[in-house]
């Protein structure tokens, strides 16, 4: 059995997820009802027999730390197992903020040097996928590689977002392009690296370079054996509102490869600090659910179609929820209508309100690059007053309360939140 440790880079801001990452890092964003995005990578680690994991956090780490807890939800606690959360810490300088992925690992080099294992997996906590890392570890060892990179074919139009590789017939990487506008290959890096521990430690000690994709990999190509391990399963970077919504909706498609239960995806069900377990979901008279994923603890008195509900969602009488993702403990009032929405935790929608209604006439005015397909998003703890109708491509900021709503009708593309420039 090959021995390895894992370092999970969970510092991603994921700013294109807009209000969903106002209070949390991207890996902590709820997904598929009961999970968070990081659960997929953590479960892969545990299911691959890796017992020691460091989670490197930086951006808004609190909800992530709560979620990971002592690691026991992934069976990662015990004498020879553990999850260490490694936030940036004071070093020689007063405060050494991680300046990049490689820098984050460098600042925690002792996690590597104190290990007697032969290889380290450097993983991102940003992706939804299932992978047994063991065949890749064997591939790495069989090739006597210094670095092995997980590689997946992506649509050509997406290549500018990725590092891409050209492989020789033995899958050794001969050329690497980092986020090139005209990539020569559509074989993209999945953000999964296996390093020989000695090689990684010496490289990070010699150089001051900050980033794996931009610096460490190109350098390794010149001086070391770098291989690409091809993967062809389900893998999504749920990093945009559209991609996040699409990946959630994949759960409703029986032909999709996404199967969290079969993947043995584990999560921490206690992460919201409830002192008791969520009861079963109760459908009451008049409630109806069609083609949807519904988590425990919900009360359904209205109509839920084509949607994903996290635990504790309350759908009152005559409410309609369609094509939407609703997170924990949101309350959807009597006779309200939600279409094509992503509703964050604890949002309260009053009675006879509407979100995502009307035609798609323009992009979101403030964030046209984030919202253009019609999806509307409502941030955590917001309260939509009775009777307010909100159009498509709209954004409601977290914690917006009654007084923030100055009118009854918000048109396509509007944002309800602090004035531009005032937020953050």
């Amino acid at each position, binding site marked *: 059995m090959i021995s390895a440790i894992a370092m999970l880079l969970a510092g991603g801001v994921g700013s294109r997820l807009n209000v969903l990452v106002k209070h949390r890092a991207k890996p902590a964003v709820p997904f598929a009802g009961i999970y968070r995005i990081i659960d997929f990578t953590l479960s892969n680690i545990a299911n691959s027999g890796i017992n020691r994991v460091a989670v490197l956090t930086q951006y808004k780490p609190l909800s992530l730390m709560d979620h990971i807890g002592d690691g026991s939800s992934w069976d990662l606690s015990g004498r020879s197992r553990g999850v260490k959360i490694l936030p940036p810490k004071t070093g020689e300088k007063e405060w050494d903020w991680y300046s990049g992925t490689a820098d984050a690992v460098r600042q925690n080099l002792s996690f590597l040097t104190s290990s007697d294992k032969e290889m380290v997996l450097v993983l991102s906590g940003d992706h939804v996928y299932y992978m047994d890392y063991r065949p890749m570890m064997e591939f790495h060892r069989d090739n006597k590689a210094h670095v092995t990179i997980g590689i997946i074919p992506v649509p050509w139009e997406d290549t500018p977002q990725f590092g891409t590789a050209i492989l020789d017939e033995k899958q050794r990487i001969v050329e690497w392009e980092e986020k090139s506008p005209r990539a020569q290959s559509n074989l993209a890096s999945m953000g999964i690296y296996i390093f020989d521990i000695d090689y990684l430690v010496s490289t990070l000690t010699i150089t001051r370079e900050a980033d794996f994709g931009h610096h460490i990999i190109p350098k390794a190509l010149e001086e070391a054996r770098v291989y690409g391990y091809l993967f062809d399963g389900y893998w999504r970077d749920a990093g945009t509102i559209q991609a996040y919504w699409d990946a959630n909706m994949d759960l409703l498609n029986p032909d999709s490869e996404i199967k969290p239960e079969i993947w043995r995806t584990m999560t921490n069900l206690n992460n919201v600090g409830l002192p008791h377990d969520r*009861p079963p979901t*109760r459908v009451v008279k008049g409630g109806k*659910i069609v083609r949807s994923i519904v988590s425990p603890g919900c009360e359904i008195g209205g109509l839920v179609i084509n949607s994903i509900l996290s635990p504790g969602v309350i759908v009152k009488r005559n409410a309609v929820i369609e094509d939407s993702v609703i997170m924990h403990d949101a309350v959807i009032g009597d006779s309200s209508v939600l279409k094509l929405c992503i509703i964050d935790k604890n949002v309260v929608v009053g009675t006879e309100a509407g979100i995502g209604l009307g035609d798609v006439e323009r992009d979101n005015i403030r964030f046209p690059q984030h919202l253009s397909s019609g999806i509307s998003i409502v941030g955590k703890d917001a309260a939509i007053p009775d009777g307010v109708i909100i159009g498509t491509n709209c954004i409601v900021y977290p914690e917006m309360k009654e007084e923030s709503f100055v009118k009854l009708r918000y048109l396509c593309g509007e944002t309800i939140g602090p004035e531009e420039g005032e937020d953050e």
Partner: protein
Amino acid sequence: MANIVAMILAGGRVDDLGVLTFFRPKSGLPFGGLYRIIDFPMSNLINSGIEKVGILSQYRPFRLIRHIASGEPWDLTGRNRCAIILPPFKGRGESDWYKGTADAVYQNIDFLRLHRPDLVLILSGDHIYRMDYRHLIRFHMDKKADLTIACAKVDQEGSSRFGLARIDDEEPRGGKVIQYVEKPRESKLEWASLTIYVFKTDLLIDALNANASKNSHEFGKDIIPTFLANKKVYAYKHYGYWGYTRTPDEYWQANMDLLGAAPKVNLKEYRLRTNMAHREIRDRAPAFIGFSGKVEDSLFYSGCRVEGTAIRSILFPGVRIEKNATVTDSILFFDAIVREGSVVYRTIADADTNLGSGAEVGDPRGELSIIGRATRIPPGIKIEGGVSVFPNLNEESFRESVYKKGDIVE
């Protein structure tokens, strides 16, 4: 608050529940789409701040042991907290299966001596109710009682199964017990014992020691009468819901009381905890209701897949209802599967059962039918209401194509 140790009587098998208790004590019986019945007293205890619990178990305790585990699901681990299963053991010269409820506690007097509580709270592990035991204990202390028995009002019908008390009309919380009769054939008394007792520890130990040489060792029949003779015995009135689930009908009804817009038992308010590792509940994906699926007036949990119809039913984790199958007024335990085109009425199907495609099970209005654990019902057969099917049967065990009321398939 006084130092209190709770002991839960969780051993009973309960004959009336038939095939449902072949492999588990009644306290381990699944309930409410997620829980085991013992989760009710266990959650009541932790929600009342009582953190030392001994569980007395002797009948088929394996599943109960797995369920209670380290006590961690109820936060009953730590320096001053514990939940421990106390099985019968062989002592020197006394080979000793528990001979009754009082004997079970007597044999574990060491547990009481170890913790040296001021008060001992004795509970039954098989009732559905919510109680803040602190109120009961406050009452017990206010009255300077030696023994306090929690009681609830019951109908005349069926009251002969209980210990019944006449209570002095002191105050709304309760009063002195004037008369107590254990399971009388006929009685006008309307307050029934809930098998929830608060004892002063030293008096309890004395009474158990005195009882040890007798032939009968039951709290209701033997211990309470000795206290009534010369000690202060009070009754504490419980006004909330109380589900006594000793027959299939009562068990079924208590489950149905969880349904509706304003259910008699609102599980959220009960703040229940269960062992989410038992049967891998926590690793199940959220429920999926398919395009042809319909769930009405029902409960379901993660791991369920509904492509057919469920009406007024309770679906435990992992239940699957396939296309064109209809389940009405029924309770399906963990991982039960209802195959395509099957029609199910008023049935309790135990864990891992498989109801073959096109099978008709149960009667829309008649007696309940019960299917034992892991049994596979062959496709297309008819099982009417009032039929009891043994566990672990495969399709070859069914020689008839129709089973009628009163039949037992074994």
